[in-house]
């Protein structure tokens, strides 16, 4: 069909082509005479910009959907098998710690949920998500779990038994539980999580087995600190028994009240509160074992969280290129579901260095094998993070500078030496007990944060122990696949 409708009529009475066809349809004749034209320059600019942006977005999302479907199709056959309905499915544990600098601790888990989980769901693999809310939380949690496991292994704690459960309750003995764990896996999202995980592993397998209540220990340490002493007493800590205080200081209250308020542990048991507490566990059981039982295989999921003003262009790029994240997440999920593992590749131990020194060109191994996983994502950490220890110190100093004043008020009000002013009746200032509790909370938080930062710092390497070498395995691409194998990512 001819698209030119601007052919000048051969004769006024004989029009051809479209003109003839549309002549009597009721379309205004002037329309049939017009030439096709491009819209104006401004319109062109607007349309091209808008349509390219929208097109990029739509293309990216369609590609993402297609990629996701592709990987789901690959593993769907696993979920369609029927098994013994009383058997337990394969279960993996997913660890996602807080990215340093980000107040939202859930970002790693969100990445997992959006990009890796669909493949796991399609492959009928059960997952349990563990989030580290503050830096260092995951380390502590893993260390506790390992210690609990060691205790059960060694015999200090009883293994779970079926005695107290009702009959026919689905109970699994410990060996079966462990076996189930090994068949599962561990998913680690992001390099901070990896660092925290390894640090927790090392702590758990190196520390002693006795049950230490961290709160108790911190409380005792803080008592020794003497921050809550009366300012009038120069050597408050050495005061043994709360005897009558004969110091003629007008503001100090009568001594029974003073001693009552100042109950603290007498200094004689202070050596006991030091870490060398008498261990109730025989040495033979308490020493860390030299051989670590095999851990479930580990899946690395590379994840970078962009935060900060300077990374906004990266965020924009990411928004329009989500398909790469979909692909890497789906590949990771595929590796996990297909269950093909390889041994962990780690740097040779220092004793064997001379053996390789003539082969390797560099004196120190530049790549640490699997321990380097995700190292490039650390370049994206905000540089302001390095001031975290200083910030904590400053906050601490500020708090302790303001503490004596609050203490004064609390004590004065409690002893009744002065009447509360009107503002104090309305907003009662914290009592001494509250101040102590508050201090405890703050100290705990500061210490935990500092510890967590020291684990996750970019200049700090991933913790490593020679014993881990044989115990760790990593999920890798299945051999007969057309995917490019990840070498040592």
């Amino acid at each position, binding site marked *: 069909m001819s698209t030119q409708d601007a052919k000048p009529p051969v004769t006024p009475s004989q029009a051809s082509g479209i003109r003839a066809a549309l002549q009597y349809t009721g379309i205004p004749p002037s329309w049939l005479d017009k030439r096709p034209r491009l819209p104006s320059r401004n319109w062109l600019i607007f349309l091209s910009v808008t349509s390219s942006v929208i097109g990029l977005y739509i293309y990216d999302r369609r590609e993402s959907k297609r990629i996701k479907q592709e990987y789901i199709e690959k593993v769907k056959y696993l*979920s*369609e098998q*029927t098994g013994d*309905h009383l058997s337990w499915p394969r279960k993996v544990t997913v660890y996602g710690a807080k990215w340093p600098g980000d107040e939202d601790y859930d970002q790693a888990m969100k990445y997992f949920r959006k990009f890796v989980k669909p493949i796991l769901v399609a492959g*009928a*693999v*059960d997952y349990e998500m563990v989030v580290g809310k503050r830096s260092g939380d995951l380390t502590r949690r893993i260390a506790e779990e390992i210690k609990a496991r060691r205790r059960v292994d060694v015999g200090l704690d009883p293994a779970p038994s079926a005695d107290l459960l009702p009959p026919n309750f689905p109970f699994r003995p410990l060996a079966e539980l462990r076996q189930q764990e090994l068949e599962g896996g561990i998913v680690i999202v992001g390099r901070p999580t990896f660092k925290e995980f390894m640090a927790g592993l090392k702590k758990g397998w190196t520390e002693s087995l006795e049950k230490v209540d961290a709160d108790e220990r911190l409380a005792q340490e803080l008592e020794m600190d003497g921050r809550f002493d009366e300012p009038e007493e120069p050597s408050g800590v050495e005061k043994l028994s709360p005897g009558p205080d004969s110091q003629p200081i007008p503001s100090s209250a009568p001594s029974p009240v003073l001693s009552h308020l100042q109950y603290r542990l007498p200094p004689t048991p202070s050596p006991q509160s030091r870490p060398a507490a008498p261990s109730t566990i025989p040495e033979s059981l308490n020493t860390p074992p030299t051989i670590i039982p095999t851990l479930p295989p580990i899946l690395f999921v590379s994840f970078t969280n962009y935060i900060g003003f300077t990374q906004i262009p990266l965020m924009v790029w990411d928004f329009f290129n989500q398909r790469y994240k979909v692909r890497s997440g789906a590949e990771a999920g595929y590796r996990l579901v297909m269950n093909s593992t390889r041994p962990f590749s780690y740097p040779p131990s220092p004793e064997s260095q001379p053996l390789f020194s003539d082969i390797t060109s560099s004196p120190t191994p530049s790549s640490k094998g699997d321990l380097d996983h995700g190292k490039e994502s650390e370049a994206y950490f905000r540089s302001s993070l390095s001031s975290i220890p200083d910030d904590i110190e400053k906050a601490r100093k500020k708090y302790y500078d303001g503490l004596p004043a609050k203490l004064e008020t609390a004590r004065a009000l409690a002893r009744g030496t002065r009447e509360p002013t009107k503002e104090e009746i309305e907003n009662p200032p914290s009592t001494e007990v509250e101040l102590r509790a508050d201090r405890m909370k703050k100290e705990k938080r500061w210490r935990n944060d500092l510890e967590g930062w020291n684990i996750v710092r970019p200049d700090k390497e991933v913790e490593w122990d020679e014993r881990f070498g044989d115990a760790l395995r990593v999920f890798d691409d299945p051999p007969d696949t057309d995917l490019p194998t990840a070498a040592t990512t």
Partner: protein
Amino acid sequence: MSFLGGARSSAPAGGLNSDKIEMAITELDTITDFFNRMVSSCHTKCVGTRYTEGDLNKAEMVCIDRCVAKYNEVQKKVGEKIQSRGAASAGGGGFGL
């Protein structure tokens, strides 16, 4: 506490017997209701309508495991919240939501 109905009084225990029976009946009703809702909810969510074979396949098993676990957990949390708001609102019966 007095007997609720002379005809229903039983020889042992005191006046609390009928109350306890009432409580037990309520609790049984609650649990049955909870169970039924859970079963129907997780069934609609996890098991498709097209029945190709009689056994559950793995995806359905995993899905049902998670559904039941989540349901249980939410039930517990909601129960705690309701209880902490006082027995008055709890008596109205929002257990089996």
